[in-house]
């Protein structure tokens, strides 16, 4: 049979990073095909190759059995590919109609182009239930409506393959349901829909077939009816075990850190965390597992004071913080919370600062920077030298800019800084992301030592193995909700996989 879209052996690297490696993909006409994988698995790169925004290093792309060379998005559109980007590409001050006619304005005056665009727009919106007022300003539309405009734009040239990149990330559940209805109508009309997502429930709900990506590679193709969320989750996160951590059983003491009914709604009104409850005791590690993008980042940032709580109470070493309290990273830090952020380049380090200046980030008001009013650089230097020696940061040069260290050593700088403050509670996000094997082992050992010294640790990681080998108990997040907390001893990959897909712990065990 002829596929609407077929990729063979497509590879793409950026520098040393293999974003896509020998990708095969086949999409039948009139089907919804899901592509699932974690953030950074290479899904968006692959779509950009299909849409002509990147050129593959090797491999072939065929549409309807015809091999084509897609050099630009204009080429892709000509071949009948439409794409709805994760971040909308609309002109907010233009009307819906003006946005739709962009790129096909017609002749010297706009009247002709406007008439044909209006006709096309009305036709598309009635055929596919894409209700939207052609004369409304885009800036007045809500997110769901804007997405419909994007879909109309993508379809206006008669697209036979429609790519949607993480379309539900910005939608409310109701808007997402409406979107899925639209996609089904499109499919029944013979359009092939490529749905990029990292949400398992969406794949199970709507797709006919699914391809799973991990670390730039295609690791499997499944018929949705013949697979299960658990199977998909394992394929997505199923990395080989890098190393076994030897650890003694935890000896948990008093509760140091807890959250009750914690919720966070972002500025667009999307609920990102809902009714999160947990307790962390001194001397234990609570792991947070889940497919990335299910609220882990928001959880870390609300707990660290970087985002405001919408509902609920956090109790830190006896002090309660609620949504009514003015909270800030400073206040939380002063309560005795250390925080190793998920993204060390965005949050944890100032890349252009010297290592010794990074070693006092967040502590520049303390004795570490000198006891007087002004900075004492000999103290700052000494502080950095000590910590570099203790945490084995290489090269041990405090004057080197943070950007010149390897990923593992950058992470060690952050860890050295946060561990040395002797926190009563520690928030750790993705401690070993982009870190070489040797450093991973070192970082894991340090985390366990800190736990045994009585720290209450909350560990967020998308690496299932990491959570399973370090945590004493595991909380699973799905869609911003706590699916359940289970003992690490009782946890296995399949149980966790089911929970990550949103099935409650009782049912899973």
């Amino acid at each position, binding site marked *: 049979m002829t596929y609407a879209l077929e990729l063979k052996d497509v590879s793409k690297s950026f520098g040393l990073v293999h974003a896509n490696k020998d990708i095969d993909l086949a999409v039948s006409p009139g089907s919804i095909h899901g592509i699932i994988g974690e953030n950074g698995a290479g899904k968006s790169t692959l779509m950009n190759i299909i849409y002509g925004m990147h050129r593959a290093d090797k491999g072939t792309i065929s549409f309807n059995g015809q091999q084509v060379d897609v050099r630009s998005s204009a080429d892709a559109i000509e071949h009948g590919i439409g794409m709805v980007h994760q971040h909308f590409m609309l002109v907010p001050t233009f009307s819906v109609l003006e946005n739709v006619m962009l790129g096909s304005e017609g002749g010297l005056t706009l009247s002709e182009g406007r008439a044909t665009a209006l006709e096309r727009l009305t036709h598309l919106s009635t055929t596919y239930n894409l209700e939207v007022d052609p004369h409304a300003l885009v800036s007045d539309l809500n997110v769901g409506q804007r997405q419909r405009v994007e879909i109309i734009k993508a379809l206006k040239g008669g697209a036979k393959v429609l790519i949607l990149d993480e379309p539900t990330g910005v939608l409310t559940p109701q808007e997402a349901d409406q979107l899925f209805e639209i996609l089904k109508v499109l499919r029944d009309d013979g359009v092939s829909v490529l749905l990029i997502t990292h949400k398992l429930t969406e794949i199970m709900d709507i797709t006919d077939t699914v391809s799973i990506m991990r670390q730039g590679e295609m690791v499997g193709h499944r018929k949705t009816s013949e697979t299960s969320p658990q199977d998909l989750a394992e394929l997505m996160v199923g990395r080989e075990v890098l190393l076994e951590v030897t650890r003694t059983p935890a000896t948990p003491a008093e509760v140091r850190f807890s959250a009750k009914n914690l919720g966070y709604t972002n500025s667009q009104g999307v609920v990102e965390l809902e009714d999160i409850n947990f307790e962390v005791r001194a001397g234990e590690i609570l792991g947070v597992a889940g497919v990335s993008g299910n609220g882990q980042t928001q959880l870390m940032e609300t707990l*660290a004071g*970087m985002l405001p709580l919408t509902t609920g109470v956090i109790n830190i070493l006896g002090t309660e913080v609620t949504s009514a309290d003015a909270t*800030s*990273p*400073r206040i939380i*830090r*002063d309560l005795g919370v250390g*925080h190793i*952020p998920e993204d060390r380049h*965005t*949050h*944890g*380090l*100032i*890349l*252009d*600062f010297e290592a010794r*200046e990074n070693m*006092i*980030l*967040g502590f*520049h*008001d303390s004795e570490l*920077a000198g006891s007087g*009013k*002004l*900075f004492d650089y000999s103290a700052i230097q000494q502080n950095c030298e000590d910590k570099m020696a203790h945490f084995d940061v290489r090269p041990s040069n405090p004057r080197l800019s943070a950007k*010149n260290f390897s990923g593992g050593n950058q992470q060690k700088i952050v860890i050295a800084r946060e561990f040395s403050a002797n926190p009563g509670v520690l928030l750790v996000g993705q401690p070993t992301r982009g870190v070489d094997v040797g450093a991973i082992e070192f970082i894991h050992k340090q985390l366990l030592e800190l736990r045994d010294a009585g720290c209450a640790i909350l560990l967020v990681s998308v690496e299932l193995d990491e959570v399973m080998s370090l945590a004493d108990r595991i909380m699973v997040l799905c869609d911003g909700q706590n699916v359940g907390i289970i003992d690490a001893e009782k946890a296995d990959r399949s149980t966790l996989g089911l929970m990550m897909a949103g099935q409650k712990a009782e049912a899973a065990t």
Partner: protein
Amino acid sequence: MSKPTPPLPRWADIVLLPLINLLAALVLCGLVIFAIGENPFAALKVMINGAFVYQGALGYTLFYTTSFIFTGLAVAIAFHARLFNIGAEGQASLGGLGATLVAFAMAPIPGIIALPLAIGSAALFGAAWGIVPGYLQAKRGSHIVITTIMFNFIAAALLVWLLAGMMLEPGQFSPQSSLLPEQTWLPKIHEMLGWIGLKTTATPLNASFLIALCACLFFWVLVWRSRLGYEIRTVGQNQEAAHYSGINVARVIIITMAISGAFAGLMAINQIQGVSHKLILGFTAGYGFTGIAVALMGRNHPVGIFLAALLFGALVQGGTELDFEFTVITREMVLLIQGMIILFSGALAYMFNPPLARLLARIFGTKEDANA
């Protein structure tokens, strides 16, 4: 994708690149002067003599330098927080207003109190004029470039209104105030040298030059030795990381703009308390904008800013001399030369960066990378 440019060694970035930019501007100006039928080398000689050699020339040059140091520091401190303060002009105008108002209010009070208070209020008024755009940026997200430009116009209008109205000197037709009380005047440098028995030519160079030098030192300590300076640099480098580390980003932005405005406000004491001894409409003479070029060329470092300010001071003073000596070289030609230098060291500051970096990388091999 083009091949990435190797990083420029620090010494080349600080010393070599500005010199090449300056040279490029001078060559282009020389061609223009040649085209209108004059000898560019003779013109250059006149400019250098006019700026440094003739009697009193250095005093005049340093007088202009003083103003440029203040506005250069104002732009630079804001830039350390990645804020582009285009409003030094307006902040300096307000500084002049502050100094004048307080000086008049101090009429019966001895200089030992009145003088520092007048100076302080110049800084304070300038700071206030910087705080408002800073607040709007920090809390409302209004872009600082737009608001500071608008505040220049508001300041200009305010001064017209005051100087053509209630502050206009009685019997005077040009918009200026009456003379400040004498104890609020800043002593001239030649007077101060006279106190210790040195006789020098009378020039407008006054004690605010010394204040400017202190401001340079203060700037260095603030940015690289104080906790606030660390916060300013952190906010400038990465606001997200600043927020993570517990720094109150909005507060730092507002404080930075206050300091920036204060530096700009101090420029007014050089003109008003130092020389004219009255508030004159348009006394800022566009020096607030020149401060942007000074800060850019000086790489936001006080030593660089001093050198760049000296260059621009020499251009103003030497340019005036050029205007005197050559009939075909007019005031406009002098403005052209200044404009070229601003163009090459400001807007095109990094034009020669890639070729220079590649050249140096070829000469020195990869050794530079190791200790970069």
